[in-house]
């Protein structure tokens, strides 16, 4: 996923494009670039986020320009791999969203003919192919080039000496907004809205030539007309797709995300030293730390490998004696503490592994090996789908350790998450919303799941919530229980089931209202709980995941009832890049 923007008109193009890219940042944010056409073709491209870009350099003065924000697919994020890409002569610039499937043979062919490639991207073949049609008019050259490409694309191209932009699309979105003597083209409607309300949407295989005075659309070389439409919706609406918050949207993406994470972590991909290790250390912060703790319980039980889990922020300063590889988990790949911890491990000569969601993020360059979460951009500050993706990757690692015997359960996991999403939590939310304190309890792998449930509740509903191992309640927190403190207990059938049931009875005796997440059709629990939330009775490794999704929903719905700022909770930032 990438975002592209093109502008031609009476304003200076670069600031318009930069603003447009900023609104497309959700489509990718690892690097960006702009090319403008004034007297000469000028390019400015950088690795990093657009929001940190600062002002546009003075040499980008043209009134025609194209820009790109990148979510790396081919080639790590770097200044070189950022779009726009130029041809050998530096007169043609191209931005591209999509994947060119046959780029390798094309690249070999072009290199054999003497073209010099400066990046590792698939996009660069496009600009060199256009260059080969030298002398031809840009639209003709693009048309001829597209015939050679397989895969998906939305392309914008400019050429020195031609006052226009050539656009084309196949399978990737592209819309063109027609303003007053200016035209802006983009991956979606959001960048258009500040300049115009009338837009046309290109169809599959369309090629458009854009000048300030108008747009010509061609299909297979013949001119066609595409009707103009009035845009009414706001940028936010388009991106949320009907969901009220990104968090809700991301919670509902969990089944697909879990499936992709499990499927993406394959046996051939993981190095032998990780598969055969005799001990493991995990370092992470916040939600990722809880994923790590769940991993510890399950890996030790099923994989019989001792696992140590440390808070990254502690690890750096109080490094324990290590044995075996060190895994750092960070959604953004930019978490300062986790990066520092991995560096510390590396300095002691231990192999390091990163688990992250962002291709080419800082952590991937430090670690010896990277496991991708494949969750797609996460926008809500409270991590939900990335937690599920982390569990997916980590559970797949356990499966590898046990020789693939859990694979059958894991591949059915998405189904169970889907079922968990259907749970009716309205009664539980009514109980939690007015509470001042909520306790989350569980045993075994459900203890970190309870910690995570409490963290989510704290983060977005601002209700004081604490997670405890159920057995620890008696060693102190019991004093806090009262009819005003709801307890959320995770109690599924397993080795700790009988003792967990008696814990629940004890808490109930203190008058605390009980919300229990348990196996469906568990009559004992259903009887004792004030509110019973059933989850599918399946393998415990999946029940941890489904219970976590239930707790995410509970936190979300509670915060929503309280009218909180869910996607941007107070005082919090998406990725913590300071220690």
């Amino acid at each position, binding site marked *: 996923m990438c975002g592209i923007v093109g502008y031609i008109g009476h304003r200076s193009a670069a600031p318009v494009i930069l603003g447009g890219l900023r609104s497309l940042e959700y489509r990718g944010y690892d690097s960006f670039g702009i090319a403008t056409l004034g007297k000469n073709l000028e390019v400015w491209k950088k690795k990093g986020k657009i929001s940190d870009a600062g002002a546009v350099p003075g040499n980008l003065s043209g009134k025609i320009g194209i820009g790109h924000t990148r979510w790396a697919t081919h080639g790590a994020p770097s200044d070189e791999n950022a779009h726009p890409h130029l041809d050998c002569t530096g007169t043609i610039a191209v931005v591209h969203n999509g994947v060119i499937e046959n780029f390798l043979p094309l690249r070999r062919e072009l290199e054999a003919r003497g073209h010099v490639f400066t990046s590792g991207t698939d996009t660069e073949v496009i600009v060199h192919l256009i260059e080969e049609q030298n002398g031809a008019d840009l639209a003709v050259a693009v048309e001829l080039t597209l015939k050679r490409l397989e895969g998906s694309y939305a392309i914008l191209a400019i050429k020195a000496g031609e006052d226009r932009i050539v656009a084309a699309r196949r399978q990737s979105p592209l819309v063109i907004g027609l303003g007053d003597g200016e035209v802006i083209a983009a991956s979606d409607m959001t960048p258009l809205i500040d300049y115009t309300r009338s837009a046309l949407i290109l169809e599959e295989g369309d090629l458009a030539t854009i000048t300030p005075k108008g747009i010509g659309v061609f299909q297979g070389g013949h001119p066609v007309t595409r009707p103009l439409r009035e845009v009414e919706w706001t940028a936010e609406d388009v991106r949320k797709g009907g969901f009220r918050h990104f968090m809700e949207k991301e919670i509902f993406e969990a089944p697909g995300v879990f499936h992709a994470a499990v*499927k993406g972590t394959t046996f051939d991909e993981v190095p032998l030293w990780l598969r055969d290790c005799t001990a493991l250390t995990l370092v992470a912060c916040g939600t990722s730390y809880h994923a790590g703790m769940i991993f510890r319980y399950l890996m030790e039980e099923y994989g019989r490998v001792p696992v140590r889990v440390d808070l990254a922020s502690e690890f750096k300063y109080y490094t324990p004696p290590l044995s075996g590889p060190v895994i750092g988990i960070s959604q953004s790949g930019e978490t300062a503490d986790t990066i520092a911890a991995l560096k510390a491990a590396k300095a002691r000569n231990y192999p390091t592994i990163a688990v992250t969601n962002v291709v080419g993020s800082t952590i991937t360059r430090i670690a010896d090996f990277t496991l991708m979460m494949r969750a797609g951009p996460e926008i809500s500050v409270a991590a939900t789908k990335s937690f599920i993706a982390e569990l997916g990757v980590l559970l797949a690692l356990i499966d590898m350790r046990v020789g693939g015997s859990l694979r059958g359960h894991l591949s059915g996991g998405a189904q169970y998450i889907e079922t968990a999403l259907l749970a009716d939590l309205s009664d539980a939310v009514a109980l939690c919303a007015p509470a001042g304190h909520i306790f989350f309890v569980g045993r075994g792998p459900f203890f970190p799941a309870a910690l995570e449930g409490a963290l989510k509740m704290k983060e977005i509903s601002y209700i004081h919530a604490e997670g405890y191992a159920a057995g620890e309640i008696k060693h102190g927190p019991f004093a806090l229980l009262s009819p005003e403190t709801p307890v959320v207990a995770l109690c599924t059938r397993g080795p700790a089931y009988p003792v967990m049931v008696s814990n629940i009875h004890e808490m109930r005796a203190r008058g605390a209202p009980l919300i229990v997440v348990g196996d469906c059709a568990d009559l004992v629990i259903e009887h004792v709980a004030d509110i019973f939330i059933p989850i599918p009775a399946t393998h415990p490794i999946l029940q941890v995941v489904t219970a976590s999704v239930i707790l995410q929903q509970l936190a979300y719905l509670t915060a929503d009832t309280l009218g909180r700022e869910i996607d941007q909770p107070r005082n919090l930032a998406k990725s913590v890049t300071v220690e």
Partner: protein
Amino acid sequence: MQAVILAAGEGKRVRPLTRGRPKALLPVGNRPILWYVIDAVVRAGIRDVVVVVGYRKEQVMRFLGSLDLPVRVVVQPHQVGTGDALCCAAHLLTDHFLVLPGDNYIDTASIARVLGETAAVLVKEHPSPSNFGVVLTCGGLVTEILEKPVAAPSFLVSTGVFSLPHEALSCLGSPELTDVVRDYIRTGREVTAVPAGEWADAIYPWDFVALNRLVLSKVHQEVRGEMSREAVIYGNVTIGEGTSIGPFTVISGPVAIGEDCDIGPHVVIGPGVSIGPGCRVGSFTCITDSVVMEGVEVGPFSHLCHAVIGQGTRLGDHTGVVVESRPFPCRGSVVPATFGAVIGDEVRSGPAVTFAQCVVGNSVAIRGHTLVNGDIARKDGSTVV
């Protein structure tokens, strides 16, 4: 031109299949019905699409978010009727518009027929008209529309696809869309009755078998995944990525098989079969004329025909389905029906279970060696011993 697609209703008559999603999201040919509606609308050249969601709206919005075309989403808080659903979307309508049900299959050609009309309804003859809005016409113009009449005076029914001018919104008020159009006609305006081409609705859950067949007739050959050299494929078959087809398996199209399926050796599939992603079919099993949704496991030595199997269901070995043609009780009445089995989501059945013209609820557990027929296992979560 704008299009309003109504996908808010649950589709109570096709229960138990609608536990986790509305009828519009139920898969035929491995794609939600709603996908075909949006595809037809887009092919007819309409780009401004509004979808009204309600029942299980998050699942619908997630599906819409996965589409290339940006669509606007409107929530209907209470699903009281199609007229009310249109009312929810009225504030987004600025132009001549099309209203379509999101849970009926319709082809592009039919939509194209009503695009030029000021006010029109697509109509088609149906053998059981009392389930629809019955249309009376005179000289190609609609004189009366009766919503689900007890005694239908004609076999001509409304497909629910209307092309209406913006001023028709002034007639909103009735909960049902047919009544809105009736009120519009009563104000003296003309509504043309245009015959529809391919249109199909699943009234009862077993109708998905026929709907699936209709959709599969348009399937193209596209085989990905791993095929054993000894497997044989006839006709138009699509097989998704990551699916493995064991040796001596015979697949005769039209058949659609999703991604990451595991089809064991010596299996016979088709014609008229959709198998969702992540399914496993044991060896020596035969499946014909069925819809098998995602994540289903069918044990070895089984035989499924005229069956609709909900997601995540696991059927033991030697499962049999017997097609019978008897009047079947459905929501308070008895209707003529010919089918094998409709099985809900996450059902677990033991070995050697025989399903004979039956509807099985969601999460039902069935002990091995039992005969399940009629409506006995309809209640969700029940156990059959």
